[in-house]
């Protein structure tokens, strides 16, 4: 069935918009937008362009991604299927964070429900019951009785000690990504090196950006930053990360990076710029994996990464246009020349 998955992924290539098509969306007249989106296979976005609710746009993007993931899952079974299903669970982790934030802010159940993404087939949580928890402690205890117990348990313990929402978010993110890495490691030997390369990009990029943010934006001490990073093991080894978290400034961190990571970051001085360059590089590499035939699962993951990035670019363009931003600014934000 991997041949079928490979073919299915190849057929999805036409759904990845080339830069010229994205640029066309920036320059088109308002009346032409729905038509262009429909022509590009995004009828679901075209229908909602007139809406003023930005969350509804996000929900539609997630719906598209989940629909396509569901198609890609059909020929998969066993750990490979579990990996791809887990890949979608970050949307549910995002729902968990929304629930916690809403509970902290004392939002009503109706207001909370409006913030949650509809995950349909992929939903594991009884959001209705969770929304009706009285406070964060009750919510976390309830979450510990769900499939997310592993992810939430540590977060609750840490939160009870500190009552710091940042700790909650950081622990949830880290627990989710650690689960992803564990699942990937379990199948990397059988799927070929493509999946390992994609995971290396994801983990290294996440670790580097988190390291810079925690260390220099939030001013956390090196030991705490190291603890909050994902389990290292790809290009950024534990030893290297321990050295990097001790660096005094951003330049010190960049100077300590291996050449492969340092090269694309040459001259960068600000964290958003570094994050942006790393993301562009990760997308280029995902495109390379997508174009390489043979490793169906790696190609499927690469497609989903590229598709999500493409849809988020489109969301940025649609939002920018709705807010009346200058075409040039939208172009810059979308990375379109």
């Amino acid at each position, binding site marked *: 069935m991997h041949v*079928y998955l490979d*073919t299915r992924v190849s*057929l999805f290539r*036409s759904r990845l918009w080339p830069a010229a098509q994205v640029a066309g969306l920036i320059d088109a007249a308002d009346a032409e937008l729905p038509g262009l989106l429909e022509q590009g296979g995004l009828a679901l976005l075209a229908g909602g362009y007139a809406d003023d609710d930005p969350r509804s746009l996000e929900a539609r993007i997630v719906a598209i991604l989940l629909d396509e993931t569901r198609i890609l899952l059909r020929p998969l079974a066993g750990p490979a299927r579990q990996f791809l299903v887990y890949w979608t669970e970050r949307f549910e982790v995002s729902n968990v964070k929304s629930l916690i934030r809403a509970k902290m802010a004392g939002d*009503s*159940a*109706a207001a909370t429900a409006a913030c949650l993404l509809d995950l349909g087939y992929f939903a594991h949580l009884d959001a*209705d*019951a969770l929304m*009706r928890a*009285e*406070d964060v*402690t*009750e919510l976390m*205890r309830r979450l510990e009785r769900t499939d997310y117990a592993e992810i939430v*348990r*540590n977060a609750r*313990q*840490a939160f009870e*000690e*500190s009552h*710091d929402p940042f*700790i909650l978010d*950081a*622990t949830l993110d880290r627990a989710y990504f650690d689960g992803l890495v564990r699942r990937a490691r379990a199948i990397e030997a059988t799927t070929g090196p493509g999946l390992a390369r994609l995971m290396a990009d994801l983990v290294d990029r996440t670790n580097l950006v988190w390291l810079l943010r925690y260390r220099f934006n939030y001013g*956390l*001490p*090196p*030991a*705490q930053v*190291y*603890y*909050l990073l994902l*389990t290292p093991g790809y290009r950024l080894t*534990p030893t290297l990360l*321990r050295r990097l*978290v*001790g660096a005094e400034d951003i330049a010190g961190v960049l100077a300590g990076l291996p050449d492969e990571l340092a090269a694309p970051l040459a001259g960068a001085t600000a964290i958003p710029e570094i994050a942006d360059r790393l993301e562009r590089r990760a997308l280029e590499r995902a495109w390379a994996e997508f174009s390489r035939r043979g490793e169906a699962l790696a190609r499927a993951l690469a497609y989903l990464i590229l598709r999500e990035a493409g849809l988020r670019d489109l969301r940025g363009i649609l939002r920018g246009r709705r807010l009346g931003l200058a075409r040039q600014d939208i172009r810059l934000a979308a990375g379109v020349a």
Partner: protein
Amino acid sequence: MFRASPMLRIELLCLASESQEMALLLARQGDFGPAGPAGGAGAERYRELYLEACARLDKIMEYCGQHDTAPIPDDAIAPNERELAGINHRLQAIWQACSGCHEQEVRMAEEKSRLEMLRETYARLAALDVDPARLLRRDGLLDSRLGQIPVANLKRLSEALSVAGYLLTEFDRAGDQAFVVVAGPRSDEGPAADRLGGLLAHAGWRDLPVPPELRTDPSVAAEYLAAEGRRLEGRVADHCELRERHWLQHAAWLRQARVLLALARPLAESALVGLSGKGQLVIFSGWVPKRALAGLRAALEVRFHGRYLLTSHEPGPADAGKVPSLLSYPAWLRPFTALTRGYGVPRYGEFDPALFVAACYVLLFGAMFGDVGHGAVLLVAGLALRGGLARLRWIVAAAGLASVGFGVLYGSVFGYEGLIEPVWQSPLHDPVRLLKLAVGFGVGFIAATLLINAYNRLRGHRWGAACLAGDGLAGLLFYLAAIVGLNGWLAGTGFGLGPGLLAAAAMLAMAVWTGLETAGTVGERLVVVLVESLESATKLFANTLSFLRVAAFSLNHVALALAVFTIAGGLGTLGHGVAVVLGNVVIVVLEGGIVAIQALRLMYYEGFSRFFAGDGVEFRPLRLVAPETRSGT
């Protein structure tokens, strides 16, 4: 029996101030199923209050372990929004008190298990060649602390601490908790909190209290633990009293609140679907069985004396797929509907397969498990089923009866083939004939399912799919032509031009339809047409061969009985009897179970998957029921 009851779409206009009473009346009648858009009636807030109150009441009842039901008086009226808000507010206060108690209980349970762990840990700590009092001294050179963390965080914390120049050593482990010493140089670069930040909190760290005299006098630890234990027991006793007091204080009101919430439920449910309005008027929209309309009108007149407006009309094409299915069955068929409901609900107007499925299931079971004795055992066992299994009573009994019937045809009683003369033949007498019959049954079954599917689509005005799809008339034509052709080929007369042309034409129609129905690029469509046409064709024949299991299991049944007799034949008189009885028990339980699953599998996979989407909407009228409460803890 073969289709859902006729329904009418109704719109019921009334005063907004009487909406909760109108909803209550509709629920008491039990014939109105709300449908359509909702909004503008101001009931959203009512629903939100209702849901919050129900959630709180459920949690309180679960916490208190109370789940008795209170009767709803016939003349009781539903609370209005203000009253509902008052109920919700009071429930919130009660639950907050309960929740605090619950949190206390959890913490006390954790504390109890922690004390148990500490008992062990202190014993080991006392045996260490280290003086904890000196180790933890604030004026020492070392910044040290004793604590416990989840084992899962041990490695990562150890690595992170090394970044700050600290060392972590595990000295004990209990369950998922590791007891550790963390030590690092006390430096002038600021307090440890600055160097470690929230690191220990992230790792789920808990300080380990060490009595200062532990090293010098080990009995101090025992005293400390005993004192902690007494303190905890005191807290538990106080807590139990508090919990009991809570319940006694609020029990009567909580029972009353449950009744009031039950009365509020109809309007709260309508707020989600079918209730719209503007200004002082609201409209309830939904479905009513045609036969119940007159009764509803009469009840409305008695309660509202003309302060309402009821209009009704037949469902139109725009309602396709939205009309709910109200399925009524004669009493004898009702127990068998579980076989269909396990898969889904037929759409309104579609063929209801309940009778077809019940008949086929019983027939297939009997054919695979034909034995007078075994069937009689199942019949008696089925009739004796009680409790939660009672809903299977008639299915098991009918399957047993069918087994008896096929047992008479096969001439088999508890595996003995000489006791009665077979009306037809023993399965082993001519297995090939049996296999042919099974395949023949499969062909008939699959043809019937394709025909039903085409009928359902025609009823739904989906002409193209009915005529051209692989699971419609084109598929049926292809299948029958191919069967006739293959039959001729096997008989030596060749496939035949007629069947060949018909099969090819049908296949072409199926391919064209698949191409038209597939969204995507030309390349994508071509792949899908190729793969799905091939799959449709092969699947039909694979499904047909699946029916070989009917013959295989009837042969298996005889073979198992032969095996039992062979084993019994090698034993003495007593052993023979025991072996025959035990062997028959194994056959009834094990093979009976397997055959039951196989028959169901044939129904679901070879039958339902072809013609029955099961995505109909079940008619769910508003009803007056007590709010659900979970069983007590």
